């Protein structure tokens, strides 16, 4: 009986740890953003396997930035990219780079993603 109790306690502790990890890993963790060395050069973003690479991009305040999307994923989920807060969207043909000009923005975080929000990225202006 004691063994079962101990096992269940272990399960509970592990479950709490996993939940804590999920919260931290997916919601609280702030990955390092890719910083463009030269804003005149486009930042290349590969669209493949359910992720934008890189998914976090830093845009210097007061400067426009060109994001060059290259879609490798043939799934129709990947065919659009939307910057909902900025009113920008673009169609991404397969294997063809598409430049998206993001005008200068106020400091803050601006999410972008596919229409279904399965692909997600963040533009960080600071």
């Amino acid at each position, binding site marked *: 009986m004691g063994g079962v109790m101990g096992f*269940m306690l272990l*399960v*509970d502790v592990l*479950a709490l740890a*996993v*939940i804590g990890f*999920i*919260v931290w*890993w*997916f*919601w609280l*963790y702030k*990955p390092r953003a890719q910083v463009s060395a030269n804003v005149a050069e*486009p930042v290349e973003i590969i669209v*493949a*396997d*359910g*992720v*934008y*690479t890189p*998914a976090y991009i830093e845009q210097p305040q007061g400067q426009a930035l*060109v994001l*060059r999307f*290259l879609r490798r994923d*043939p*799934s*129709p*989920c990947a065919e*659009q990219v*939307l910057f*909902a807060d900025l*009113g920008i*969207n*673009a*169609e991404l*043909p*397969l294997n*063809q*780079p*598409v*430049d998206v000009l993001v005008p200068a923005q106020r400091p803050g975080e601006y*999410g972008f*993603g*596919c*229409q*279904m*929000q*399965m*692909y*997600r990225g963040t533009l960080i202006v600071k």
Partner: protein
Amino acid sequence: MQGKDQQPVRLSIGGMSCAGCVSSVEKALRAVPGVIGANVNFAEHTALVQGRVSAAELVKAVIGAGYEAAELSGENAEQEKEAAEFGYYRSLLRRALVAALVGGPLFLAGLLGVLPPLDTLSGRLFWLLVGVATLGVLIYSGGHFFTGARKSFFAHSANMDTLIAMGTGSAWLYSMVVIIKPDLVPTLAQHAYFEAAAVIIALINFGSALEMRARGRTSEAIKRLIGLQPKTARVIRNGQEVDVPIESVGLDETLRVRPGERIAVDGVVIEGHSSVDESMLTGEPLSVAKQAGDEVVGGTINVSGSFLFQARRVGSQTVLAQIVAMVRQAQSSKPAIGRLADRISAVFVPTVLIIAVLTLVVWLHLWPDASYALVATMTVLIVACPCALGLATPMSIMVGVGKAAEYGVLIRNGEALQQSGRLTTVVLDKTGTVTAGKPVVTTVISLGDWSEPQLLSFAAAVETGSEHPLAAAVLAASQQQEGLVVPSVQGFEAISGHGVSASVDGHSILFGNQRLMSQQQIDCTAIGGRLDELAAQAQTPILLAVDQRLAGIIAIADPVKSDSEAAIRRMHAIGLKVVMLTGDHQTTANAVAAQVGIDEVMAEVLPQHKADKVAELQQRGEVVAMVGDGINDAPALARSDVGFAIGGGTDVAIESADVTLMRGSLHGVVDALQISRATLANIRQNLFGAFFYNALGIPVAAGILFPLLGLMLNPMLAGAAMAMSSVTVVSNANRLRLFKVSGLEQEQ
């Protein structure tokens, strides 16, 4: 124009007159940073540029060198997209088939009870082989889910792939533990779930393939628009008519169009005349007459005669290309109604992962058979469908915006569509919106010995050479009168603010208002109450006297469009209040309003105050649409909740408003509103369905019904439900394709 990366950019070049221009253009192109090579084809008036450079920069450089340029869009882009999508569709079916070939027989054998038990050596060997085969399925048919899940994880993101990979992966792993190390699992919980993993993978791949087919139908409208673009054009080069691919047509080149052919690019007629069917772009059913000097638009059909025209816009600059670009842009935008779903989608998968962990723990606590905990956890992961939520809004927008384009209504974005669905009041500009915007002679009344055609010929004679808009109406009326000869005029005199006088064929003519007649002591008693009657009918009367005797009245008016009244009736039928806003005098405005059934008139409003009037209505709590020509009404259009620019055909500036009506008819306003309302209703159905499905499916999968009814959701059933939830959303959006606006046919 899109930027290109090391892919050749094709440009059409205009303004090249000699071979020397070729080197100038090439020099300008090669000077653009990133260009590796540029070759200009003088015969085709095109340039092919290699390098890492955007088309926009190249166009700018060519224009800077004193020439014209436009990007030639690749005609095969849509075909390539379709080919890629079809390839992906087939690969999904292949994956589904392979998974079904492994999972299906296992599932059936399990139902029939003919599978070997796990507690014998031969049985365990059999199950080990099944485990290896299922691993093959997970790698071949489900590999993309696992790759996506792994990459998402390391990008601190989680998506549908995460749920599928964790659900099927945990089923396989658990089953392998049962086979290889059964001691680790209580006897009661020793079950293998290979068939569940394989069948789930088969169902989800199959569901994705179905969804893809259904999604293809949502973009039929854009495909139809793209299909309007002919593949070839007949160009006159070196005096010969030659058929060339459409992308090689250069600016300023001369093209021949024969009856029944589609016009290749935008241009101006230089020889011949015809009528052109523009219905595919404007929704206007009647053909439009074209003669030298008239503009023609690529994609429209030449109905009758043969003519020559000069190309003025090619490639991505044509009206058709711009319409396609705008519709595409609008189709991929998202209105506010979809934001809640987006916010939920953003946290959905990690939340489901947490629910799965809690499900596992609770079951382990409450039930001795650990396999129940595994089944419930796996089912929670499989049944949850973030895709249905994510698809709910964009699929409907895609179909709704496309449907509007079929009616000649271009909606700028999803937000405009959402706002259009909420409108309560429509404000119409008068001139050019309710009326045709072109004054015409509407009434000719003879009051003496002269016939009506004679009166018109006298009036036309004295107005010849005048630039007054009313004079243009008189001259146009005289030209339309068959056999009418306009005599020469002598002694012409303009009497400022009153009218004109002249001698025509030996008769002294006075043509002007009543004050002119009084001044010249002409007896006007014969008029009676006619002037007031005409004014009340929104007509401007002009009196004509011949040899000092009143001869007749010629009335001029800007007539209401033939379908304005019917369109306003349709507005009323859908519960809209209709207001007319005009700078005209109250009497004229009232007369026009009475003709078409307008509810409220705001007359004598200066252009700069029109926006204030819109604001006034908004302060009264109305959600206001402003309908105008998009040029003079720009501030009012901007102030309104939804600005409608009404065009007179394909010459409309499609960038000027939230909604552009390609057909110059107010019916477009009602069409736009009905389509918007139907689209919003469709979005709400989709959102409700997706929320309801997940809100119900996840608790049932977790086993909430088990204590009450002893029911557990089968994970394979969960897989089928998950696959079908997305298909259902897309199919519901596709229902919008069948939507027809109401009231239009009855009114036409």
